[in-house]
């Protein structure tokens, strides 16, 4: 009985952690891409002469 409840609580905690992980990660992925990366891609494209 206790183990079942423990398992449920463990699953709930894991879910909570994964949800928060996603939120932190999403917060990071919505940051604006710095121009330096876009410039770099342009530069690489130019070097390839395509």
């Amino acid at each position, binding site marked *: 009985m206790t183990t079942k409840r423990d398992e449920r*609580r463990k699953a709930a*905690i*894991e879910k*909570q*952690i*994964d*949800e*928060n*992980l*996603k*939120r*932190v*990660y999403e*917060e*990071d*992925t*919505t*940051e604006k*891409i*710095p121009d*330096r*990366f*876009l410039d*770099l*891609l342009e530069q*690489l*494209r130019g070097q390839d002469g395509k």
Partner: protein
Amino acid sequence: MTQSGQKKPAAQCGDPRDELVEHLPALRAFALSLTREGASADDLVQDTIVKAWTHIDKFQPGTNLRAWLFTILRNTFYSAHRKTRREVSDTDGIHAARRATKPEHDGRLAMNDFRAAFEKLPDEQREALILVGASGFSYEEAAEMTGVAVGTVKSRANRGRKRLAELLQLMDGESLDMTDSATLAVMNQNNPLMR
């Protein structure tokens, strides 16, 4: 299983280098989770872009470009990290302190607490959690990307979750029942009908 080969998704027809830009936000977030510090994260992304661009012939069209990019980023990080491990080993919490985000008032974990706790985890646990917990790769994909067995990724992720739960004190539910009966006892004592 239609083997027509005629109607490939656009992603498979074009130059994968044109898609790099779409993966930059995810790459940055992954880099940030590894370095825990913005400037090194961006340097890491920059190196990854250059490597991916110049080795694009090694990418197998039709496979997961994001996984491929993550693998490059991670290998770049670890080869550089091995040299500077000592230097960066005590940056715990610096990244969390840098980004003082607005507190949440909806009962979810405070982001700063969560970030600070996350940054205390060992590298391989953070990585496993970012790959499978946050970015939605399967355990199998994460195992391939990190060059370890699936079971290893699972145990790293689980140990990471457990440690996070401890750090955030999510595990103290043990005393819940006792608290409840204690509360009930107090309530009974104060029950007007008992007087």
